[in-house]
């Protein structure tokens, strides 16, 4: 079948950090591969320490060079161009222009001494070479687009005069000024109240439809991913451990980590059981340190199904749909259970 070629191709990305005094090297991202297709929303899900933020920063080469570095052998391609070999000038033409990024904490990502109008206009001036008057008009347009009331007045406000939700909208406006093809959103709603989160997610959906943009949404909230992502990549210990379409992932999670995560989230739609509500399923143990990933499968110390092979051999991403119904290559999991499903015995 013919598919549009991916907008972003990441292959075998490895980003390591040197730590002080010989704690060893932190292998924060250790061989991550995925695609982002034009116009789709890809959700990247994982808990702290899994490497999702470092992945997103690596794509735009925002990793501070010491102590971090992107290892040779990593490959990042955007619209056919290799990001990792771009000259600084060409890279700057991509950042903010073709690929834009919004962050978790809108207060610290906005410069407190400049008006929001100035900050939005800056991207327009730098990339589109607009005059300041034209850029200001554009800024007002963008504020309107992201749903800020009274944009002509607000354009001269400072970040501290705005609430968290508004600041996040300003961030989105800044990111979208140049109509990027890809928006990387790193936990954009985590710091916001739930009713504001709903507003921002709805805004992102609307803008994505209007502008035909692809979105890479990084989050730890499975509910957010279920509501907005087309495909999901689950990360653990610096690797992709499962990737599938959203519906597939929630209906048929293959990797025990994904399974565990889904089972341990308290759910609003669970039947109320009163006092006999019982325990939440919890994944035993904790995330290992990036300087000392376990041997073999990195999840094996916490996995209820682990057997000898898991301790000895690190599994590659295996295709779950090989030789069965379902499109090959659309659901992959880094787990030996894909090869030996009979070992998926009931949990004790």
């Amino acid at each position: 079948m013919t598919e549009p070629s991916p907008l972003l191709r990441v292959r075998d990305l490895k980003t390591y950090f040197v730590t002080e005094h010989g704690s060893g090297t932190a292998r924060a991202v250790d061989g991550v591969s995925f695609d982002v297709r034009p116009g789709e929303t890809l959700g990247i899900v994982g808990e702290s320490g899994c490497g999702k933020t470092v992945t997103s920063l690596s794509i735009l080469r925002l990793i501070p060079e010491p102590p971090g570095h992107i290892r040779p052998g990593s490959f990042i391609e955007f619209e056919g161009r290799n990001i990792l070999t771009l000259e600084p000038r060409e890279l700057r033409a991509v950042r903010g222009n073709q690929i834009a990024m919004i962050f978790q904490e809108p207060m610290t990502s906005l410069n407190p001494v400049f008006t929001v109008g100035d900050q939005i206009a800056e991207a327009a001036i730098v990339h589109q070479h607009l005059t300041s008057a034209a850029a200001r008009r554009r800024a007002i347009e963008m504020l309107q687009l992201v749903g800020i009331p009274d944009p002509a007045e607000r354009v001269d406000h400072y970040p501290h005069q705005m609430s968290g939700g508004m600041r996040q909208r300003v961030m989105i406006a800044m990111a979208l000024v140049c109509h990027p093809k890809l928006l990387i959103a790193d936990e954009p709603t985590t710091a916001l109240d739930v009713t504001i989160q709903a507003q921002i997610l709805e805004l992102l959906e609307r803008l994505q439809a209007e502008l035909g943009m692809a979105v890479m949404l990084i989050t730890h909230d499975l509910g957010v991913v279920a509501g907005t992502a087309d495909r999901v990549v689950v990360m653990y210990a610096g690797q992709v451990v499962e990737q599938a379409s959203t519906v597939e992932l929630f209906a048929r999670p293959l990797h025990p980590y994904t399974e565990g995560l889904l089972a341990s989230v308290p759910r609003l739609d669970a039947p109320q059981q009163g006092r006999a509500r019982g325990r939440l399923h919890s994944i035993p143990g904790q995330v290992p340190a990036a300087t000392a990933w376990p041997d073999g499968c990195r999840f094996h110390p916490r996995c209820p199904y682990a057997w000898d092979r898991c301790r000895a051999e690190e599994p590659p991403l295996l295709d779950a749909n090989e030789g069965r119904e379902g499109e090959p290559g659309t659901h992959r999991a880094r787990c030996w259970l894909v090869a030996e499903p009979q070992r998926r015995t009931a949990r004790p």
Partner: protein
Amino acid sequence: MNVWNWVALGGAAVAALVVVAAVRRRARASVSGRRFFRHPTAAPGLFVLAFFVTIALAAPLVAPYQPYEQIDIDHLQNDAPSTRYILGTDPFSRDVWSRLAYGARISLGIGALAMLVAMTIGAAVGATAGYFRRWVDTALMRLVDVGLAMPRIFALLVVVALWGHIAVPVLVLLIGLTGWFATSRLVRAEVLSLREREFVAAARAIGAGPGRVIVRHVLPNAAAPIIVSAALGIGNVMLLEAGLSFLGMGVPSPAPSWGNMIADGLPKMAVAPWSATFPGLAISLVVMALNAVGDALRDALDPRKEAV
């Protein structure tokens, strides 16, 4: 200087090196320790301090003469440095090196003790003002404002002039009492932010009274600026003492302090520069060393710098 003096002097240098090496080894185990020694001037500064402290402690061993001893008032005034009197003699025919060694006790001692007095009062006042706030804070801080506005050296001169001859312990107290104001502001600022931290609320929640909260929870976490301020402040105190002694209002002759040694030697500066220069150099060295160590400490103890 006889052979034993030289041996003792060498021993002092070795002792100082050993101390620095030992500190360095201990420091390697912690992030702040490593950060401390990343400053190129930290280790030399530490060495200079250790060296002078050792000299001060071992003064009887390294000094060939007594500091008051006027060796030969007729012939040995303002004698240039020689093998016998390695730093020369002063206008009263006293051995400059011996006076320097014994003077270290007084100058360093006054520096450290006065600083201790100032730190204690400053921390107590600052913590009280910062923790209790409201009128206590307002009252104390207005007092501090007055103290900061007061020209310190003039106030000390007035007191000394009125009092006449003052003993060294009293001098220590006076310098300490006039020097705590800036520290109290620093401590108050730290305490203001610390008292909002949740572990302070937790301490109150388990039933700790204000005294326990301040002493066991707040102050240990406010220690960093206090320590840095102390290190840098000792230098200030030494300069102050030197200035007072230079003006004749500090440590009374014939007790040697680096300040009054400069005063004694200044009239003969043109013909016999050594009696004023060497103590001056000593003061400069120690103050620079304290500044270097203080700077390195400030970086090392800065809680905002996270280790990778």
